[in-house]
């Protein structure tokens, strides 16, 4: 099993036997708010803490705001982080993690949502 995963990571191919790899297209910005490795592991915690600070205390710092994520990572084609090649949805589909941020929050970039 471990060998299989290591082998699969090495090939770097988009075609695997069963599940297509997520599409991670970075279209905007030089760097994210934290190093990529940290973002991959910790982004949910950052959003979670920012959520409570903003909602409860009115602190609207932009560094870890969901609006900031969407504004940078939305596809230039659809303006959304959802959809087949959406930044959020393709990775979460791969990891089989259901997110419900976008039941309430708009998945569209600010200029598209207005």
């Amino acid at each position, binding site marked *: 099993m471990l060998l299989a995963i290591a082998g699969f990571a090495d090939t770097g191919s988009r075609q695997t036997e069963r599940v297509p790899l997520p599409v991670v297209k970075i279209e905007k910005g030089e760097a994210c708010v934290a190093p990529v490795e940290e973002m991959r592991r910790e982004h949910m915690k950052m959003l979670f803490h920012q*959520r*409570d*600070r903003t*909602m*409860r*205390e*009115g*602190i*609207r*710092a*932009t560094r870890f705001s969901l*609006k900031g994520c*969407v504004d940078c990572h939305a596809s230039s084609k659809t303006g959304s982080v959802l959809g087949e090649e959406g930044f959020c949805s393709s990775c979460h589909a791969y990891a089989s993690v259901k997110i419900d941020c976008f*039941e*309430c*929050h*708009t998945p*569209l970039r*600010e200029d598209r*949502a*207005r």
Partner: protein
Amino acid sequence: MNPDRRQLLGFAAAAVLAPGLRLIELAQARSPEEAASTLKRWGLLIDIESCSDCDACVSACHEENGVSSHGRPATDAQWIRKVSLRDRATGHVQTLPLMCQHCEHPPCVDVCPTGASFKRADGIVLVDKHTCIGCRYCVMACPFGARSFIHEPVTGQKPDVPRGKGTVESCTLCVHRVDRGETPACVEACSQAMVFGDLADPSSEIRRRLKSEPSTQLRADLALNTGVRYQRL
């Protein structure tokens, strides 16, 4: 620096530079990193005699907050509505906008089993939809009928105003605008009848008018100390 000195500097900056260009914002907007403070208490003053027979405040609110109708008035969300009052004895009719009254002692917060309904430090009463379970106790508890339950999936939300099925919502006093140092959308649409300001600041327009002119709270008998006050009701 004491507040008077700071305000004087603000006026000086406003006087020196061209209109619309100020070194220091007169509204003294909080920085985005700063938490809402208990030193402020946001409120509204609504003059009923200047309130005409239109619904500019309602449409401005629903446009700003992305509140759309499904064409089913019985269950559609209402953040603000126009209410007509008719004196049975004389037949005199008045209309007034009714929304969340942003009480100091909000019954909706008392009954919420999850703590989702809460009052922010600056007096704005909100629903944290992350923890709202949609039980609707607050809808029952509010004496003003200010809260709405969202029955159907929502699309087309505004980036600053998340809204979703299964949660309760109401007027937020346009908290996203207030945090930017702006006034709520209803006040911007109807400055003739509505004044927004800080009830805790003795030099604010709203506080001056409340001191010098008579005003009423809706259901004053409940002693909720509402943040929204009415005049000539």
